[in-house]
Structures are given as structure tokens and as C-alpha cells.
């Protein structure tokens, strides 16, 4: 039938030229302390700002101190920002691992580090 043939042609066009899908995600736009930066002393908290509003129920941020011990408290989500209080730790490299879900239901994860000390 003509309509079916035309529909198949349209569908094939879409399949051929349509791009492969990528998972959409909230991107980490900035962090405080900045990603890869060196700060003179351990901050009282870290702040992560994303490109989209987040769902608190599916937000996880883990911070480890230079000794590999957990150094972060409970993450607070407000819009597109996450604030995590830090428990004291010495100088060295702090690693942050995050996993978030944006309000439009796309999950992303990532990690970065910052250094405390001279």
C-alpha cells in the first residue's frame, strides 16, 4: 500500500540520518574549591554547581581525605547546587565522587580532586 511504503521510507530516513542517542546529563559547571585547584587550608564545605536542577533523593557526593577516609557530611541540594560540609583533614589531595539525577531524570556521575596545602 502506498501509505505504508511512504511511512517505511520516512522511518528508514529517520533511522539512517538520526543520530545515535547519548544519555543527557547535568554537567558539573563549577566547584568550590575549583576542580584541580590548590587551597591553603581545608574548606569547611565544598560546593558543586550543575547545569540543571537536581533531585535530592538521587544525589550522592562522597569526599575522601588524603588518607582515603570519608571526609564529607550529608549533602544538601538546593536547585542546581550541592553543598557538602567537610570534616577536618590534613594537607594533601581530596577526592570528590559525585552521582546526580537532574529534574528531567538524567543521571550523571563524575569525580575530581583538589589539593589542600602549599
Amino acid at each position, binding site marked *: 500500500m502506498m501509505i505504508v511504503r511512504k511511512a517505511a521510507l*520516512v522511518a528508514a530516513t529517520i533511522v539512517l540520518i538520526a543520530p545515535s542517542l547519548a544519555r543527557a546529563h547535568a554537567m558539573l559547571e563549577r566547584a568550590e574549591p575549583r576542580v584541580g585547584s590548590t587551597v591553603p587550608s581545608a574548606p569547611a564545605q565544598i560546593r558543586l554547581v550543575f547545569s540543571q536542577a537536581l533531585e535530592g533523593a538521587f544525589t550522592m557526593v562522597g569526599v575522601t581525605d588524603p588518607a582515603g577516609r570519608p571526609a564529607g557530611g550529608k549533602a544538601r541540594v538546593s536547585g542546581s547546587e550541592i553543598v557538602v560540609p567537610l570534616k577536618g583533614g590534613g594537607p594533601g589531595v581530596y577526592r570528590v565522587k559525585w552521582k546526580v539525577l537532574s529534574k528531567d531524570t538524567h543521571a550523571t556521575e563524575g569525580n575530581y580532586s583538589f589539593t589542600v596545602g602549599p
Partner: protein
Amino acid sequence: MEADALTWTLAVIRGVHLATASGAFGALAFDSLILRSAVKASLRRDAISAQCRRLALFWLVFAVLTGAAWLVLLAAQIAGSTEPVLPPRETLLPLIFDTRFGGIALIRLILALFLAVALLNAKLQRLPAIAFVLALAFLVAIAWTGHAGSGEGEYADAHLFADAVHAASAAIWVGGLLPLMLVLLRSRRTRDAADAAIAPGIVLRFSDIALPCVVLLLGSGLVNAWMLVGDPRLLLVTEHGRALLVKAGLFAAMLMLAALNRFIVAPQLLRPRADHASARMALARSAALELVLGLCIYLVVGAMGQMHPAIHFLEQLLAPT
């Protein structure tokens, strides 16, 4: 980057859900905005109204089922699955009760239940505005779960409004095509000249309503493109941009068909010596092709909902090389 089976399944489910939710509202919009203006109160008009309500109920059932599938598959995706499988309870329950998506899904389920009652209850059927408003709310509430709903900043509300207008105007046009086809084919089935006689008025009224819908679609589409793409160069270098070009191409094809119908085929219904039966068939076939193109658009939109908006790559595009 190749997407996994779950992402593709979600894209299709989202597209089908959008299409069926639009079909439900479109059938009721056809009844309220087109049929009741073009045809005087009569048993014939009541019969076609009842057909529109049955269509709306049919699409509503599929919209609820695909909506539930969307929720379940989304939970599976959040839990880290790459295949369409059932999710763990510890992901599904927080998704339903602790997220905006879940809250909107529950509200839409309640709207769907009320809509079903409005479509089935004889007393409420005499107040078609109730079902119309419920179906509209059921459809446009989806906007709060998409990219527009998660945006922040001074233009976030404008984006959300544009998204809702886009969904509603598309549904009135595309969702009205199947009821229009059924009206055009009605006289073939009933062999009643009176059924043939109402076709020209309905076709002209459909065109009168479709034109402002096209204008609203273009306007709200441009707003959405500005919010989600930002720079025309991103249309070619991002997946989201290329998908938008596919959508625009399908939309252009629908517009050309609609213009052909309005200015060449439909006028034949009004010429006394023209072959009206052939003209009705030609219009019905053309409406069917428009509907297929419209369904393809909904599938593309479902896929776009899984993609990273092009504007998130704007910084990369503008970065000095």
C-alpha cells in the same frame, strides 16, 4: 556514542506516550473546537462526538500504560541497568514519591482517572469542556518533566510555557487528523448523503483551527530552539541539533501536505460538479500520511528527550581553538 537497549526503549516509549496523550486531547479538541462549530446539533453530530470520546478513551488507556512503562524503565536506568528490566524497589519507590517526575506522574494518573470518568459518565458527557480541560492538563503536565522543567534562570518559566503551548498546539493538529479521517470516510461506510454533506464544513473549520496551531507551533518551537540550542552551528555538530533538524524536516513535509489539502483538494468539496467522493478520499489519504509524519515527529521528540541539549556544548563551540 552508541546508546544502549534501555535508552532506545525509553526513547520509543516516551515518543509513543507523547503521541497517545496528544491523541486523547486531539480527539476531544476536534469535538469541541471543530465539530461543534461546523455541524448543527443533531443525532449525527452526537454520534461523531461519541466517536471522538471513544477515540480519546482508547488513546488515554495507551497513554497510561506507556506512562507506567516510562516510569518503570526510567527507574531501571537510574539503577544503572542498560537493558529494559524491572528495577529494584529501592529505586522505584523514591522515584515515585521523592522526585518531581514521580510527583507529576501521580498527578497525571489522577487526571487520567478523572478524564476516564468524564468520558464514560453520561451526565459529564453533556459538559465536554470538563474532559477537554482534563485532557489538556494531562498532556501539558509532561512539560514539567522535560528539559524545560529542569531549567533555571530568568527564562525558565517562558521555556516551560512555550513547551506547554507547543505540546497543546501539536496535539490539536496531529491529534485531530484521525477524527477528521473518520469523518471523511463516514459517508463511504453509512452511504448517507447527509454524512457527505457535513464534510466540507468540517474540513474548512479544521483548516481554520490548524492555521493558528501552526503559528503557535512555529513560535513556541523557535523559543524552545533558542533555549535548548542557542547557536545555529550546534544544529549540525550535536546529536540534539541534528535530531531537531530531522523534526523540522518532518514538520515542513506536514505543512506542505496541509497546504496542498487546504488550497487544492479541499476546495473541490465545494464545487458543485466536482467528484466529491474522490476529493474526500484524497483528503483522507493525505490526512493519513500527515498523521504518519506526525507520529514520526513524536518518536523523534521521544529520542530528543534522552539527549543532551545542544546548548550545553555552546562553551566548547565558542572556546578558542
